[in-house]
C-alpha cells in the first residue's frame, strides 16, 4: 500500500496506483466517513490494512490534510482530525452534516438487520425431479436470496459436473437452476464447499419430487 499513499509525482503523469477499497462500503477508505457504516468500515480497515488505518484514524498526520490545517493536524487523534475538518464548515452546515450522518447510520443499520433476517430465513432447495423412467433433473432454487448470481453459478455447476446446467424461469415468477442428472447430493456438498460462507448449511435442503407414482 505504500504506493497508495504516495502523492502524485508532480505532473509526471507516469504513475499507476493500486487502490485499496473498503470491504464494507466499497469506497476508498478515506470516504468511509460519509457513509452510514463508518464504525464497521473502521473495524474492517484496522483488520485488513492496519497501516492505512493508523494514518486515517489514529494519531499521526492524516493522509491528505488540507494545506491550511496541516500544521495543527500532525498530532491529533481521529475524532479531532475529523473535527478539525468539520471546522471548515459553518456551524449550521456542521449540524446538518451530523444529522445527515446519524440518519444514514440508522438507515444502514435497519437495512442491514432486515437483510440479515431475510438471509437467515431464505431456504435453498435442491430438488430431484424424475423426468423419465430413471432419468432425473435436479432443480436448485433460492440461491439468489443469498446474493448469488444464478447465471454464474449455473455455469460453474455445468463445468464442475460436466453436464447441462441452465437458469430457468419458474411459474411463481422467480428463477431456478436446472441441472441435468441426479446430482442432489453432489450439489449439496458443492454448494456448501463453494458458498458455505454465504449460505448456512441449515438453509440447504434436499427434497425429492415424486410426481405421479410413489407414495410421496
Amino acid at each position: 500500500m505504500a504506493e497508495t499513499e504516495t502523492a502524485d509525482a508532480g505532473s509526471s503523469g507516469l504513475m499507476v496506483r493500486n487502490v485499496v477499497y473498503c470491504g464494507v462500503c466499497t469506497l476508498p477508505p478515506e470516504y468511509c466517513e460519509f457513509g452510514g457504516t463508518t464504525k464497521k468500515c473502521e473495524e474492517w480497515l484496522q483488520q485488513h490494512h492496519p497501516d492505512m488505518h493508523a494514518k486515517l484514524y489514529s494519531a499521526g498526520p492524516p493522509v491528505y490534510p488540507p494545506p491550511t490545517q496541516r500544521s495543527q493536524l500532525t498530532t491529533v487523534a481521529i475524532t479531532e482530525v475529523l473535527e478539525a475538518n468539520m471546522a471548515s464548515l459553518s456551524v449550521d452546515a456542521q449540524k446538518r452534516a451530523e444529522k445527515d450522518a446519524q440518519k444514514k447510520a440508522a438507515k444502514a443499520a435497519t437495512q442491514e438487520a432486515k437483510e440479515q433476517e431475510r438471509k437467515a430465513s431464505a431456504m435453498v432447495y435442491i430438488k430431484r425431479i424424475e423426468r423419465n423412467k430413471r432419468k432425473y433433473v435436479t432443480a436448485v432454487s433460492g440461491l439468489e436470496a443469498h446474493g448469488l448470481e444464478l447465471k454464474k453459478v449455473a455455469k460453474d455447476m455445468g463445468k464442475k459436473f460436466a453436464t447441462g446446467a441452465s437458469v430457468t424461469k419458474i411459474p411463481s415468477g422467480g428463477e431456478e437452476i436446472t441441472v441435468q442428472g441426479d446430482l442432489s447430493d453432489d450439489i449439496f456438498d458443492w454448494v456448501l464447499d463453494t458458498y458455505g460462507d454465504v449460505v448456512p448449511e441449515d438453509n440447504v435442503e434436499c427434497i425429492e419430487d415424486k410426481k405421479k407414482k410413489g407414495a410421496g
Partner: protein
Amino acid sequence: MFKKDITAGQKSKVKSSVQRGIRTKVTETYPLLAPHIDEIMPKKEQLDLIKLPDRVSLYALHSTPLFFQHMDDALLPHLTLVHRYPSCFPRIRIDRGAIRFVLSGAALMAPGLTSTGGRLPNPNAKAEDEKYGKEELETGAPVVIEAEGKEHACLVGVLKMGTGEMKEKKKGVVMDAGHYLGDGLWKMHLD
C-alpha cells in the same frame, strides 16, 4: 446519471475496428493517458460493450469497467480507472463541505469549487496545486472532480459551465449528471 442501482443489460463483443476507434477517441480526449493505453486496452484483448439504462454504453475489459458514454457524448472514465491513473485526466477540486452532496447524487454547484477549499485551473498555482492545471476548461469538457483533504477522486462528468465562468459568477450548476463514488455504476458488478 446513475443515482439508481442499475443492472447490466446485454453484453456484446466490440468489433476490432470499433475497438480501434475507441482507443483513438480515448487518447484524443485524454492525451495524458496515451502512454498507458496499451496497459488499459491491450490491442489483442477483447473489449466488451454493456448496455446500461438511458442509452449509456459501458466498455469493459474482462469484467473491469473502463469507460462509459451517453449516446455519442464524450467517453468518460469509470472512477476505478481514474483512481489508477489519477494524473492522466483533467481535474479540479471541491471543498470538503461539498463532498457529502456529491456522494448523495446532488448537482455540483460552483461555490464548492470557488471557495477556499476548492481548486480550479490557475496559471499562478503553487506547486502542490499545479495538478489542477493552468488553462481554463470549457463547457462540455470531461473532467474529474477531486476533493479537499482526499487523495482519490469522487466524481467524473462533463462541465455544464466553463471554469472561467465559475470564477466570475461563483454560483450555478457546474455538473449535474456525473458518475460518483457509491452510485449505481460504482456498485454494479460485471461477471
